[in-house]
């Protein structure tokens, strides 16, 4: 009982509210990413895109979601029922979990309390992100295997080997960054960038490798081999219908949002306002945090646009091309980047 009294209930409440807000926000953003994807695809193909539901088709994602909810739910007879349901749930869960360590903005003062706009400032932030993102592929694998369908299984295998290949290069490209920052906490990394320059200036190659690998991790074109429509009939979610399919599709968009957030945090200063010295304007208080969020969202938006822009430009890689690029190009490049960074750091400290 004494233990209950020692808990900081207000902190718990504040974190719970923050979790609810972050989860809702990422879901809504993922919803409107589908709309943005359709609009951008249309514009790049000289079309107009959805424009019937509401002005400019702004209600289209709602209509799409409703449609998915009302569809018949089919679980194949020969599938493994538990795993079949677990697959999309896991995909969605891991997609949402990554948000926990992203620092959305600086501290806010409300009702005399200093509230950190980050759910958990763990000192191993990046490791946590990596762990959860790698878990994300379990959703694809379990779903593909449980469907008891050869196409799904093939897609699951492809997805798994793709993630293994690209996570390596991603990790190595990040080591170079971590050697510079000396910290795994995302908040610390952002604060360092606010004081000096954005990491992209020091690690352009590292960012490029990270970005390519992020495309592969999110299963986005040109690396969407695990859901290749024309060779594998939509791949791992072929047997899925209704909102279980929706979860898979949705998880992809949430992943895109989160990986954009991670990239903005690691390389583009996170919630840092460009060309503006935050520490000199501490009197702005909560406004500073608000502008921070807006800047962060803008950066994320640019990344999301970039993701979609690439999707509607580049065709899918062949499987051997994918593996060649991963193992023979990106990993050596990342290794070289790491070695050079290490050497330069050593030289500067002498």
């Amino acid at each position, binding site marked *: 009982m004494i233990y209950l009294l020692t808990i900081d209930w207000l902190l718990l409440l504040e974190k719970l509210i923050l979790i609810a807000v972050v989860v809702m926000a990422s879901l809504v953003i993922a919803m409107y990413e589908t709309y943005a994807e359709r609009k*951008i695809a249309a*514009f*790049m*193909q*000289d*079309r*107009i895109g959805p*424009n019937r539901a509401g002005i400019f088709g702004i209600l289209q994602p709602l209509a799409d979601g409703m449609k998915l909810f009302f569809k018949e739910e089919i679980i194949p007879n020969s599938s493994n029922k538990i795993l079949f349901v677990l697959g999309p749930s896991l995909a969605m869960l891991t997609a949402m979990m990554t948000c926990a360590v992203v620092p959305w903005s600086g501290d806010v003062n409300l009702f005399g309390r200093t509230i950190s706009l980050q759910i958990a400032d763990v000192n191993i932030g990046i490791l946590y992100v990596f762990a959860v993102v790698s878990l994300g592929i379990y959703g694809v694998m379990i779903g593909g295997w449980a469907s008891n369908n050869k196409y799904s299984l093939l897609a699951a295998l492809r997805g798994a080997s793709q993630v293994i290949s690209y996570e390596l290069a991603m990790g190595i490209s990040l080591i170079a960054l971590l050697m510079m920052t000396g910290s795994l906490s995302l908040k610390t990394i952002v604060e360092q960038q606010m004081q000096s320059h954005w990491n992209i200036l020091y690690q352009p190659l590292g960012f*490029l490798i990270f970005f390519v690998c992020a495309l592969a991790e999110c299963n986005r074109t040109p690396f969407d081999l695990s859901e290749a429509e024309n060779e594998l009939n939509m791949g791992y979610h072929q047997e899925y219908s209704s909102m279980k399919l929706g979860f898979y599709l949705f998880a992809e968009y949430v992943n895109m949002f989160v990986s954009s957030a991670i990239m903005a945090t690691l390389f583009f200063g996170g919630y840092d306002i460009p060309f503006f010295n935050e520490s000199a304007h501490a009197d702005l208080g909560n406004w500073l945090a608000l502008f921070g969020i807006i800047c962060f969202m803008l950066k994320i938006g640019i990344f999301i646009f970039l993701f979609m*822009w*690439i999707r*509607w*430009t*580049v065709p899918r890689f062949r499987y051997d091309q994918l593996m*060649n*690029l991963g193992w023979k*190009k990106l990993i050596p*490049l990342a290794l070289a980047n790491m070695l050079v960074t290490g050497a330069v750091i050593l030289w500067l400290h002498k």
Partner: protein
Amino acid sequence: MITLTNRAKPVDRKPMTFIESIYLWNIFKGMMITLKHFFRKKVTLQYPEQTRPFSPVFRGVQILNRDEEGRERCTACGLCALACPAEAITMEAAERMPGEETLYREEKYAAKYEINMLRCIFCGFCEEACPKDAIYLSETFAPSAYNRQNFIYNKQDLLIPDPETQPEQFAEAKGLREKSKKNNN
């Protein structure tokens, strides 16, 4: 190799250079092309609100014409049915009774006149065959129905609105025709 034309282009099978093999530069070039299209004028036609202008010789769904006093022009001579290559038209003739002079222009009229729109190929031969200027092809197109029976258009479906009782609808139906006639010249 001897080629028939000088347009044949040999396939370049050189191995990729390093720049090409990391794809980035070529992908960037491709992205510039899609970006150009992003800001280009869109070609979409918002169909129900906007329609594409028809060619002057457009042939749509048939309309049965009336004369200036609103009397049906058709005399059920059967030339249109004879001319129809798809055998879509069928009709039954009847004799005009005294007192029906305001309804029918001549002594004989079509009591039943049906066109099967599933058979019709919109060739316009009926329009050409008609000696009485009683049938012509309008600019209405894409008839839709839920069953086959509703695709058999009867006389009520085909007749132009009466200029005496429904002047506005008649003017509208006529105007479409006049417009396309004007384009014709």
